[in-house]
């Protein structure tokens, strides 16, 4: 009786999990399949599970009729430059807060952390007006620079540097190395793991970013891919064939990163969740 019960339990468990996996995986499969159906077959009814004659027509038209390639490049430029600048600046700031002693350090740390829980929709309007007064509306610097600064990255690097044994730096200090040299030549090489981890986290977060690119860019040349895709979804007529093919192109980089670096993403989330 007990054996039957446990087999039943197992079955139910796998049933629930498999059901969940189907709910997660099917939309992605459906997106890809639909994007390969030419033209108005995308929304033919009844829907065919697989395209009858798979074609790349939606993609070629999307890339020729609209500046979608440009939008994708913008998305990359945006996400990569925010990520690069964040890694440099936040690792420096995190190191200063974790390792260097100077007057006012704790107060500055608290000041940094006080911005951590400020919701973006609380500051979005005044921030836009500040960036506007700098003359940065509809520019790359207006898109990129405000997105770099966030307490989370500083905090995560600080936590990591607190965990590195001090002795490693002490030896170099006795040899008379400068702090900057120690940071560049000893600390950073030890931080390859966290740099990669935070790099992936920053990239994904900015790849996902929507409201800021939406309000700060006006000319289509500066749009990121998400804003472009959203523009296809007009309330009156949605250009579904370009929505789905554009979405596939936008989803692919994230998925590649995910499967290549999943270990690092998981580690980054743990850093944020457990120690945060």
């Amino acid at each position, binding site marked *: 009786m007990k054996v039957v019960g446990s087999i039943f339990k197992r079955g139910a468990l796998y049933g629930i999990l498999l059901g969940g996996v189907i709910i*997660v995986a099917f939309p992605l499969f459906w997106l890809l399949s639909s994007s390969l159906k030419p033209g108005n077959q995308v929304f033919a009814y009844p829907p065919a599970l697989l395209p009858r004659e798979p074609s790349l027509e939606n993609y070629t038209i999307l890339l020729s009729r609209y500046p979608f390639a440009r939008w994708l490049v913008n998305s990359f430029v945006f996400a990569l430059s925010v990520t690069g600048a964040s890694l440099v600046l936040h690792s420096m*700031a995190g190191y200063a807060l974790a390792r260097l*002693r100077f007057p006012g350090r704790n107060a500055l740390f608290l000041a940094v952390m006080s911005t951590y829980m*400020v919701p973006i*929709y*609380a500051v979005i309007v005044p921030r836009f007006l500040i960036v506007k007064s700098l003359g940065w509306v509809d520019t790359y610097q207006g898109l990129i620079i405000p997105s770099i600064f966030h307490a989370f990255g500083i905090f995560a690097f600080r936590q990591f540097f607190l965990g590195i044994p001090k002795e490693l730096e002490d030896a170099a200090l006795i040899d008379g190395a400068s702090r900057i040299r120690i940071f560049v030549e000893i600390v950073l090489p030890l931080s390859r793991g966290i740099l990669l981890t935070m790099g992936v986290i920053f990239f994904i977060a900015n790849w996902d970013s929507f409201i800021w690119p939406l309000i700060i860019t006006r000319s289509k040349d500066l749009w990121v891919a998400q804003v472009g895709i959203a523009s296809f979804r007009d*309330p009156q007529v949605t250009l579904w064939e370009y929505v789905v093919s554009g979405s596939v192109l936008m989803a692919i980089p994230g*998925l590649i990163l995910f499967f290549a670096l999943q270990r690092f993403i998981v580690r980054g989330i*743990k850093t944020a969740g457990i120690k945060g």
Partner: protein
Amino acid sequence: MQMSSLTKRVARVSVVTRLWPRSAQEREQGLVGYLFLLPDLIGLGVFWVAPMVFLFYLSLHEWTALSPMTYVGLQNFAELMKDDLWWKSVRVTLVYLGSYMPLVVVLSLLLAVLLNTRIRARNWFRTAFFVPYVIPTVIVGVIWAFMLDPSFGIVNYCFRQILQLPLLSQLGWQLPNQMWLASTTMALPAIIFVDIWKYVGFCMIIFLAGLQEIPAQYYEAAMIDGANSWQLFRDVTVPLLRPVILFVVMISAFRAFQVFDQVYVMTAGGPYYATYTMAFFIYERAFKFFRFGYAAAASTVLFVMILIFTIGQIRSLGTGAAE
């Protein structure tokens, strides 16, 4: 004359040396410390602190695209109080929070517990549930809007097929064609579902990390006392996981208070404002109608609501989780 300037200089130097560490190494440490912090401090100051201060100032002013900024006192807040659309957006956001947050927390905790047991293909399942995290929210929104389309969407198609199965049709079960995002009752639940789809795996990973920190001895001891798996969950897992639960509650609430991307691409706030969230209200006031002062007042209220919620959560869930 010369004498006094010299004493002044001596005095100044001694003040400086008292504040400033004597050894060259300490001095260098301080300099490098400030240098390393400076760019981030300026950035956080300009793009977080200054907007925060400016927000309160702005909320007391009327400022549109056409008119210059004029001081109006609390008039913006008084207008909010009388604005039906504002109250609607508050209600929508609170409904979102009240359903989304508990569902995300419970579902992700359940998944984490299931995937922390010794089952086959465990890592494979974890990966699968985690995938949506890397799909941008806007993309998630359009995929589901595509699938939920009332006329050609795959979801309605599946429902119709299921209802045509012999047994069900004989029972006479009828399910009217669901309008989903075009329906005032279904649109908000649909958006909540989609956001859960996107976010549950992320929270699951956080819970899994927390579960792995719980020492196995606790479970062994409880099992020796004859606890069943529900008791293990209730009396060992949940209490020890409290700080992590608090964290997931906070981040999912933070997300629920600020729903925008999905609404923008799935319903644009409609139909009939059924999905008009506070973030969407703020966005439209500022960037569609260019009423910056009024939008700032709405932002201020949102900020205060989140602050109160955060403090309340830390008080209620945080006690006993201090270690």
